[in-house]
């Protein structure tokens, strides 16, 4: 999931789509007080699951390439969730095995032994074996195949190596200890060797047009611009899914898609908080509201002289009221929780024991005075003009900073010009910007935002001690010590505030009430539900 992209976050209109939030319970109904309108508990009407029927899920466009080696966009990841199975998943910090029977590190943490379940089948009936796992990993590591996952398996310039033990067992041998390895392998979806073996370019292979997967649903039909249809895979190891088929239907315009949802042309869609009330009032939908594992933040450009002063950043943090910001950007606190740590609550070792900055204008002014800021300096806020959340928060911030005596200029940019500007590591022509990310459960992924030379270091934040902490935490295999290192990291960032965490937004999925099993299917970021095989027609 960490594959997910700020990129999308940054330039895409989709921004409003998501929410964040922090409750540990994955599936929290937004209005608990009104249970008959939104609840989706297991005891729905006492009806027991039955087989049959189909579910039409709205997606916003065509999938890029239906091959896990290249799945980076929201649509492809959503379809992949049903089409391919991973080795294991993580559930509240516990491994839940899927294709794997077991996955165990050696004493020295350099060798991980993967044992596959026996009698697993690809959708074409062939057996899933260690050879498929090895083939997949070799393809990812092959420089000619352009898989974006490759960097995950390169450790200090050296790739991991593999050894086939028997038909179902593979050893992964790491060149150095990596505490993040188990987390990284969450994104590993084997592809069938017997299908792709002789292809020179896997991304351009014709085989991607009718993928052979390993998940609970198999590929049936793809009509470009219209839909992707999957049907039940009867030999799925965890049991036959209830639904006969799932159709991922392309609905590009959100307003038209909401009407299609109400008409029954679509049964499930991720919706904006703005549309919550309208759709909920129809009484036709379960509105599944859950934390999306996203952080929305303000970034200070520390290339600029004024933002290189810690007091100024802290002063700005004191000048803003997070509750007001959430009301401004997310309509109500139902759709976002105020954020403290730069880690989202679903990330391992996340802690709220970090320095927070209560709303206090007097203190803000004091800090500005201490930093020698006179108020004549101009603060420029850059944002993409198609990003509704950033736009409203820029206006809010302008007003609040003027109240503490700063001069603020807003720079609204077209999305491409904006992304060029924020990726420019030497940019000095703005002081503040906004951004968001979904990084997933593995805390190591976050370092691409915080290390001094990291590509996504929007704050141009340079702290050698912190850089070292990230490196230490990546190789620390003792969970208690690792937790402590990540706590130090979060606290250092909390003190230095290169980024000011604002909110953990929540996502809302509207699902037609005729479908049950939503809680068992488990709502997750991006792909909407973890396991659609648990969903049934009531």
């Amino acid at each position, binding site marked *: 999931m960490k594959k997910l992209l700020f990129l999308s976050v940054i330039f895409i209109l989709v921004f409003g789509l998501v929410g964040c939030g922090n409750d540990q319970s994955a599936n929290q109904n937004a209005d608990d007080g009104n249970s008959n309108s939104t609840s989706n508990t297991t005891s729905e009407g006492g009806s027991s699951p039955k087989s049959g029927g189909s579910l039409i899920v709205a997606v916003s466009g065509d999938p890029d390439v239906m091959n896990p080696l290249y799945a980076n966009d929201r649509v492809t990841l959503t379809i992949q969730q049903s089409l391919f199975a991973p080795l294991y998943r993580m559930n509240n910090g516990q491994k839940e095995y899927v294709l794997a029977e077991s996955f165990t590190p050696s004493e020295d943490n350099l060798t991980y032994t993967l044992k596959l379940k026996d009698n697993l089948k690809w959708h074409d009936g062939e057996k899933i074996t260690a050879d498929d796992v090895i083939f997949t990993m070799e393809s990812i590591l092959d420089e000619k195949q*352009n898989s*974006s996952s490759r960097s995950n398996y390169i450790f200090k310039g050296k790739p991991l190596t593999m050894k086939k033990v028997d038909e179902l067992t593979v050893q992964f041998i790491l060149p150095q200890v990596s505490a993040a390895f188990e987390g990284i392998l969450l994104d590993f979806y084997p592809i069938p060797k017997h299908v792709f073996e002789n292809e020179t370019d896997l991304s351009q292979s014709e085989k991607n047009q009718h993928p052979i997967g390993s998940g609970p649903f198999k590929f049936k039909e793809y009509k470009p*611009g219209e839909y992707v249809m999957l049907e039940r895979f009867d030999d799925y190891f965890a049991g036959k899914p209830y639904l006969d088929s799932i159709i991922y239907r392309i609905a590009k315009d959100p307003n038209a898609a909401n009407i299609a949802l109400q008409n029954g*042309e679509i049964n499930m869609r991720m919706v904006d908080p703005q549309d919550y009330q309208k759709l909920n009032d129809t009484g036709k939908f379960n509105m599944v509201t859950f934390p999306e594992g996203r952080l929305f933040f303000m970034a200070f450009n520390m290339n600029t002289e004024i933002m290189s002063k810690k007091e100024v950043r802290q002063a700005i943090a004191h000048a803003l009221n997070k509750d007001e910001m959430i009301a401004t950007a997310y309509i109500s606190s139902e759709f976002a929780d105020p954020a403290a740590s730069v880690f989202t609550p679903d990330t391992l070792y996340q802690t709220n024991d970090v320095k927070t900055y209560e709303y206090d204008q007097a203190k803000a002014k004091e800090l500005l005075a201490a930093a020698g800021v006179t108020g004549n300096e101009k603060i420029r806020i850059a944002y993409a003009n198609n990003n509704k959340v950033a736009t409203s928060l820029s206006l809010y911030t302008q007003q609040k900073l003027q109240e503490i005596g700063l001069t603020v200029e807003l720079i609204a940019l077209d999305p491409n010009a904006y992304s060029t500007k924020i990726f420019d590591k030497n940019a000095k022509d703005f002081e503040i910007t906004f951004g968001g990310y979904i990084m997933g459960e593995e805390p190591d992924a976050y370092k691409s935002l915080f290390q001094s030379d990291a590509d996504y270091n929007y704050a141009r934040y340079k702290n050698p001690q912190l850089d070292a902490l990230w490196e230490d935490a990546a190789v620390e295999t003792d969970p208690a010590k690792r937790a402590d290192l990540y706590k130090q990291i979060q606290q250092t960032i909390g003190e230095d505030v290169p980024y000011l965490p604002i909110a953990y937004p929540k996502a809302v999925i509207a699902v037609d009430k005729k479908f049950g099993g939503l809680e068992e299917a488990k709502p997750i970021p991006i792909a909407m539900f973890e396991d659609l095989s648990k969903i049934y027609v009531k």
Partner: protein
Amino acid sequence: MIKVIVKRLLQAIPLLFFISIVSFLLIKLAPGDPVQSFVTPDMSQEDVERIRHNLGLDQPIYVQYVRWLINILSGDFGYSLISHRPVLTMIAERLPATFGLMGSSLLLSLLIAIPLGLYAAANKNGWFDRLISGISYVGISIPIFWFALLLIYLFSLKLNLLPSIGMRTIGVNSAWDVIKHGILPCLVLAFQNASVYLRYIRSNTISQLEEDYVQIQYAFGSTKREVLFHHILRNVLLPVITIFGLSIPNLIGGAFITETIFSWPGMGSLGVTSIFSFDYPVIMAITMFSSLMLVIGNLIADILYSIVDPRIRPKG
């Protein structure tokens, strides 16, 4: 005649060449990068650069252009940078949907605009003329996305008569089902086109009505109806042919906004997606096909001219 056609087609070659250079430059100089669709936060800079190199995107623009041009000339339109599928296949599978929608809306708008335009001109400044002119002004100025959503709201949600998105009901394979899905987008496009055409036809008819030959026909005792449909129509068709010729590239290029709102699986929605992801092989292919159709459309218009109006028949 054949000589003229060949000459015109040869003249089009430098034009197409020029269009390809300008479009290529525009795509490449705009901020943004197709490699972004490969990049994930945990990728190393070396891997990003290697992918850029593998795709040939690290070369100077003119090298990339020449490489593209050589491939095009040998009939190779390449692969999409996003879906990694052959560009020609992607275009071929979108063409029928766009052709059907654009063709039917073009036909419908001519069927609406010609009689209404003639009739409005014949009754210049009458109540009918004013009403039609008023409606056509609305048609020209109304934001298309708003009008499309309004129709979806009314006909799909409130009246529940027509589907709101897509080209067919999943699992249903009938022509009637496709037509039902096409009605709303076709109406949206036809309303706007007809409004434009109508204004051309009306003003042209008005100027024709003042011509001497019209007065003579009246003097010979022709009725207004005979004059309009037998004599004026032929002359009024000239601007209509021009418009028709200019509409031909749309039959291929599709309608960006309308197709996107209705999730119509045509070239327009493919174009929008490609532009947002900087997928230049696809953008260039669509641009070149549309340009070629523009050239052909103009040629067809010229040939039709000479059929309708012997005065401009080419000599030789």
